[in-house]
């Protein structure tokens, strides 16, 4: 491997956007995001970090659904499990030293392990298509139903009361003891930077992943699992891999959400919550990481803005937005917008760097 090979790792047919212009844009966005807290008010910083927290789950679903072709309707099960795990462990260990950070790691391990087990049960059990959605939805609903009734004092793990429908509160924020004994508490702008850093790393890592051999086989599986198998790949292993990574990312969202709000409730695993990631990803664009990332972020922002502006009309407006988006931009509005832009530019001048036939195929398919 030489230095010149590195761009190859991040670019490929599985991701839109390549070339200097695109990467300069990415760098500009990261720089802008990094200096944003210097200029924004406190609420805007924490609100942006809050949106960012959900994007991990969206990216995970994008990997499972957009790239792997399996619609998981139950990412919230991993979200919730990791959230509860973080809560239980952090409350038991206390906020001293780097304990909350340790709790985060354990929560991720628990959420991911559960995703791996559930994925194994489904994928090696021959469940596919829409039934993956139904099983995952059933799991998250059963989990939510169960947690709802844990209000009683007998539902206690160590010092942590599960506390039923009302959820667990007063969960310690994330913090870590640095080597020199300096204590970093991830709140406000610090939490923002943590989320930003993790998002950048996750985005780049997923780009490498989907453009790797693994990603090639995964999209092949989405397109034609039989063919992939006849090329000598064990399809199930790749699907399980994607499902587990998606579960890991949902767990990351869940644990970070819990650490941010010091709070987790069963409702975060119930039906409306479970539908949300699908909406973000479907509306933003599922077959491309950048589209999922940008799309989810914008959808989260727009939904909140609509709720603030239109109060009780918000849900009507959100519903209409979904219908319209799916009608005119079935592949997601980000991919649609990129395609429109490139079509306009093609009319105006030489062929643009972003447009390619594969993109067109994506926007035309459902």
């Amino acid at each position, binding site marked *: 491997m030489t230095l010149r090979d590195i761009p190859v790792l991040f670019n490929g047919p599985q991701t839109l956007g390549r070339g200097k212009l695109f990467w300069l844009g990415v760098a500009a966005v990261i720089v802008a995001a990094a200096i944003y807290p210097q200029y924004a*008010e*406190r*609420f*805007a910083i*924490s*609100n942006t970090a*809050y949106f960012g927290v959900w994007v991990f789950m969206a990216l995970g679903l994008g990997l499972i659904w957009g790239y792997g072709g399996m619609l998981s309707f139950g990412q919230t099960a991993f979200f919730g499990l990791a959230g509860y795990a973080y809560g239980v462990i952090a409350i038991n260990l206390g906020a001293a030293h780097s304990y909350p950070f340790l709790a985060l790691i354990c929560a991720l391990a628990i959420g991911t392990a559960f995703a791996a087990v559930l994925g194994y049960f489904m994928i090696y059990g021959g469940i596919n298509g829409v039934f993956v959605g139904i099983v995952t939805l059933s799991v998250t609903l059963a989990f939510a*139903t169960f947690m*709802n*009734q844990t*209000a*009683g*004092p007998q539902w206690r793990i160590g010092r942590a*009361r599960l*506390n*039923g*429908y*009302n*959820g667990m*509160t*007063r969960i310690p924020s994330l913090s870590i003891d640095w080597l020199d004994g300096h204590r970093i508490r991830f709140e406000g702008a610090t939490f923002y930077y943590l989320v930003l850093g993790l998002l950048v790393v996750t985005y780049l890592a997923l780009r490498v992943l989907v453009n790797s051999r693994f990603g090639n086989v995964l999209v092949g599986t989405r397109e034609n699992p039989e063919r992939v198998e006849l090329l000598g790949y064990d399809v199930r292993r790749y699907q399980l891999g994607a499902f587990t990574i998606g579960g890991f990312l949902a767990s990351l969202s869940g644990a970070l*959400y819990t650490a941010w*709000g*010091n*709070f987790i*409730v069963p*409702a*975060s695993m119930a039906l*409306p*919550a479970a539908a949300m990631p699908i909406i973000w990803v479907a509306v933003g664009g599922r077959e491309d990481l950048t589209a999922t990332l940008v799309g989810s972020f914008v959808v989260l922002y727009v939904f*909140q803005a*609509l*709720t*603030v*502006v*239109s*109060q*009780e*009309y*918000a*849900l*009507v*407006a959100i519903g*209409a937005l979904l219908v*319209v988006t799916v009608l005119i931009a079935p592949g997601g509005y980000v991919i649609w917008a990129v395609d429109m832009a490139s079509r306009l530019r093609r009319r105006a001048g030489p062929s643009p760097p972003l447009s390619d036939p594969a993109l067109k195929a994506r926007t035309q398919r459902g």
Partner: protein
Amino acid sequence: MSMLRNLAIASAAGLMLGVSAAAALADDKPPLKIGLLEDHSGDIAIFTMPKVHGAHLAVDEINAAGGILGRKLEIIEYDPQFDNAKFQEFARRLIEKDGVQVIFGAATSASREAIRPIIDKDNALLFYAQQYEGGVCDGNMIGTGGVPEQQFSTLIPYMMEKYGKKVYVIAADYNFGQISTEWTRKLVTEAGGQILGAELIPLGVSQFGQTIQNIQKAKPDWLMTLVVGNAQSAFYEQAAAAGLHIPMGSSITIGLGFEHKRFKPPTMQGMHVVMNWFEEIDRPAAKAFVARWHAKYPNETYINDMGENEYSAIYMYKKLAEMAGSFDLDKIRAQIATGKACIDAPEGQICIDPKSQHASHQMTLLSVNADHSVKVEKVWPRVDPYWLGQIGCDLTKDDPKEQYTPSNLPSK
């Protein structure tokens, strides 16, 4: 789409209009922003909309009379859509972006628990105008709804005396239902009664065939119903249709869910409820309040206790600020500590208990007749929220910011 846009524009314009009207009224001082965080949509919106109306009615009246300490009030409100994450989102927004120091809001215990840490962290003030399971000992919260000692320790002895000692309980399977069941069990056994069965039902369940059979099998003297939400209230219809004629007691029907207005008579016959407010309360101040309300909101089916509690909460805030001569939380709490923070609410006089920061209430026991008219069986002129103080919560000395239950008492 254009209709939607019009809707959006219209509502945005309405919002602006309200703001500018309020601004025009204010003379020299800027208006005081207060946050309102109640569900306008979602499963319980039909019960929480009266809270929104009550808050607006109170603010309109107060502004028309010159505001608080010479400042008009301006409501900043968001619709959290029955979603706890949105409650948090908007509580932060209200405090951090809109700069409010006092929030009126949250209906379910879950939404209250979701925003309480945020309120505490920013040292803001939450008025929780909600009948609930009780037990929150938090200096940043003032509770103006009924609590179990006010509702159960009045209702249960009455029912046991009148109907008998064998009780069956059905309750929503979450914190409110479970803690209320704990209370019922405690009070019934203390009075020498017997709980024949306590059935917990998941939220959202609407089919009660098996439950009705279980009750028939147990043959209780009366039934305590603590079912919650739209789906679960179908119990009453199904029980009546199955011919389960049994006296019932509850802390949340009629006054909160106005089931006597929503079901066809005689479904709710034999229901007994203790609450601090019913629209039917016969008292001049209450009658005048009901008339003012219906003049402003002619389509309101029923002014439930949530609506009246929210209305009173805003007046209580006015009283406290005026006593303190300031909107500062510490000064307000100093006034609460005097034990003299009382107002004449539509229901009667209410005072804030210094130890628990919950309101005392005049409690009324109603029973429902076959034609769904109601009958006042008994009135307790003043019941204090004594339980928290009794178990050791004293907010004048210490602020644990905890929620206690009969099975989770403060460690001494």
